[in-house]
């Protein structure tokens, strides 16, 4: 009996020690979990229960000068996959390939990668994704992403440019003002339950995303539309290869429209060639032909090398120039300098340029901004091509004065004409008018930037009067005349240089007209350029001048400039609240 009692006590002791030991182990483990390993487990728990969202602030919108939206954002679905959760990658890839019309093998490759997250199709058509949602497969999910949309489609396409899938600007205004348009990223931390539903923000210290700034352009949607419409009509009637129209306010350098053809729709940039999204008015060079004569004319007047009424012998349309013959389109004997410009006499301008000499002509070419970038706030601007004086041949003085042997951009050409229109100041052209925050409060507004004075006000006035003669009866640009408004301008018909033969082509021309209206109080400068028009008549006065007139008529109405000889109905604004 005693022995049994002792055996029982011994067993109890062993049991007690065993329980004590076990508890000891549990306590040690507990201490390890709560102390030494705590940070590791806290992190692991956070991974299970927390979801961190990186939220991109909405990209700023782009408006025209009157607040009409030109670039906005919409949310569209993007489909992603977590490959480890997909049980049958082959079947899933097959289904997704037919839904999104993607390469099945590529999709399968993506689904078989060891990565935790892969994109299947970004920024997809919501209707397609809606169909996909009905047959939701584990491991596939949808994230809503902001996509750039250009609601006016083709309007101002090349100038607006476009943004990529990650909403980074790649071309045009989108690229130039990307830093301002980009929003700031924010971070939100949520706690989620076992079903993956969000419970509550983890704490209030999350960083909210901020939207990008809005850009208001100088471009007027209505003028842009008129420019594009008239350019389209001209392209259709002349079957030209390309064309462009620029309109500018000569008092501020603000561009009111930039129409370019072939057209480009930034909503469907993948269906266009890169050459179609090039903003030709600032990236492409062309030989300006007779429109360039305004430089030699301005220089000659400013330097006192010629008087407007001075007669110049025009050699009856043919003049020997360093072994080659320089022709005039209309042979003349004696012409006043005004008529030399009005009738676009090559010989007359060549003779005036000879009085100036290469140094002075070159000084004015540079002064008008040719051969250097205008500083326009758009990417990809070319600086033009003006050869150094040391590279000029015997003929160069004459040929450059009549607009050959030089490469200029359309934006340089219109800036030079704007300098004549505004009384002699060369301004920096620009397309941004205002940068505003999300509430519409202006942060930065652009003001006119004067680069330099190129000619005196008097010279500009004299040249304006001469350029008015171009548009009057008998001038090369008479088809640019707008009833009721004095118009000043210059035609240009430049033969294109053929790099294969090394000569000027006999049937490929660039026809242009650049001018301003009203000539006595310029509100707008317009450049029309038609590249390789087809048909019998390819002169700037026949092809480009009528386009100038059509656009000018409507633009003047838009800008509220009444024609001469017609009295407008004057109205007064009533004060608010008055009876």
């Amino acid at each position: 009996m005693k022995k049994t009692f002792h055996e029982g006590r011994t067993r109890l002791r062993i049991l007690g020690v065993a329980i004590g030991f076990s508890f000891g182990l549990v306590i040690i483990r507990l201490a390890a979990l709560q102390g030494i390993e705590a940070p590791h487990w806290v992190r692991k728990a956070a991974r299970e229960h927390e979801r961190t969202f990186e939220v991109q602030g909405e990209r700023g919108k782009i408006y025209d000068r009157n607040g009409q939206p030109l670039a906005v954002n919409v949310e569209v679905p993007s489909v992603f996959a977590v490959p480890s959760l997909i049980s049958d990658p082959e079947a899933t890839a097959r289904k997704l390939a037919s839904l999104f019309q993607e390469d099945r093998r590529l999709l399968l490759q993506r689904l078989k990668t060891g990565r935790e997250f892969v994109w299947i199709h970004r920024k997809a058509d919501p209707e397609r994704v809606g169909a996909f949602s009905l047959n939701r497969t584990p491991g596939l999910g949808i994230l809503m992403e902001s996509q750039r949309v250009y609601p006016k489609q083709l309007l101002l396409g090349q100038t607006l440019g476009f943004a990529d899938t990650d909403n980074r600007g790649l071309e045009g205004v989108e690229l130039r003002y990307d830093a301002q348009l980009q929003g700031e990223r924010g971070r939100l931390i949520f706690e989620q339950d076992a079903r993956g539903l969000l419970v509550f923000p983890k704490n209030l210290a999350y960083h909210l995303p901020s939207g990008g700034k809005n850009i208001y352009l100088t471009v007027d949607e209505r003028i842009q539309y008129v420019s594009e419409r008239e350019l389209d009509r001209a392209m259709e009637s002349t079957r030209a290869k390309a064309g462009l129209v620029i309109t500018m306010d000569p008092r501020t350098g603000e561009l009111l429209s930039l129409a370019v053809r072939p057209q480009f729709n930034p909503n469907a940039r993948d269906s266009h060639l890169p050459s179609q999204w090039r903003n030709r008015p600032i990236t492409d060079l062309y030989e300006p032909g007779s429109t360039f004569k305004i430089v030699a004319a301005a220089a000659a007047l400013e330097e006192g090398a010629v008087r407007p009424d001075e007669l110049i012998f025009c050699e009856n349309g043919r003049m020997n120039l360093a072994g080659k013959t320089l022709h005039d389109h209309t042979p003349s004997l004696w012409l006043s300098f005004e008529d030399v410009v009005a009738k676009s006499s090559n010989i007359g301008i060549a003779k005036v340029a000879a009085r100036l000499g290469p140094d002075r002509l070159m000084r004015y070419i540079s002064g008008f901004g040719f051969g250097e970038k205008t500083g326009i706030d758009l990417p990809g601007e070319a600086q033009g091509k003006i050869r150094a004086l040391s590279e000029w041949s015997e003929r160069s003085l004459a040929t450059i004065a009549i607009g050959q042997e030089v490469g200029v951009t359309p934006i340089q050409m219109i800036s030079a004409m704007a300098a004549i229109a505004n009384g002699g100041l060369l301004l920096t052209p620009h397309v941004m008018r205002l940068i505003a925050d999300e509430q519409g409060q202006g942060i930065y507004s652009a003001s006119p930037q004067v680069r330099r004075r190129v000619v005196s006000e008097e010279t500009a006035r004299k040249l304006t009067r001469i350029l008015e003669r171009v548009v009057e009866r008998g001038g090369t640009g008479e088809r640019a005349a707008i009833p009721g408004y004095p118009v000043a301008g210059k035609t240009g018909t430049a033969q294109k240089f053929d790099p294969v033969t090394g000569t000027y082509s006999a049937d490929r021309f660039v026809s242009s007209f650049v001018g301003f209206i009203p000539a006595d109080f310029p509100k707008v400068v317009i450049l029309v350029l038609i590249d390789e028009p087809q048909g019998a008549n390819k002169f700037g006065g026949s092809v480009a001048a009528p386009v100038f007139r059509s656009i000018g008529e409507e633009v003047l109405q838009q800008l509220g400039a009444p024609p001469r000889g017609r009295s407008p109905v004057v109205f007064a604004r009533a004060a608010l609240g008055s009876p």
Partner: protein
Amino acid sequence: MRIFFVSNAGLVFVGLAVLLLAFFALWERNRMVHTGYEIERVNREIKLLRRTHQDLSAEREALSGLGRIDWIARERLGMALPSKKDQRLLQDQDEKDLP
């Protein structure tokens, strides 16, 4: 005996108080979770409405494109630009800059 009674009653009281606090905390947590769900639901609704608003705004802008209006006016409604005779020019008397 009295000390024992006081001690037990005290313990019960403290226990009940702790229990009450625990229930209160649990209730608060429960309310917070439900409020969180409600906020999430409303946020989803806001997002959906915002998306719809964005879509409709973009559609309105596309529909109000001048090219489309011009086309409808000319092709569907047979309209044309008024002739010079039919136009009346309005000029604001405050516009001093015009010649």
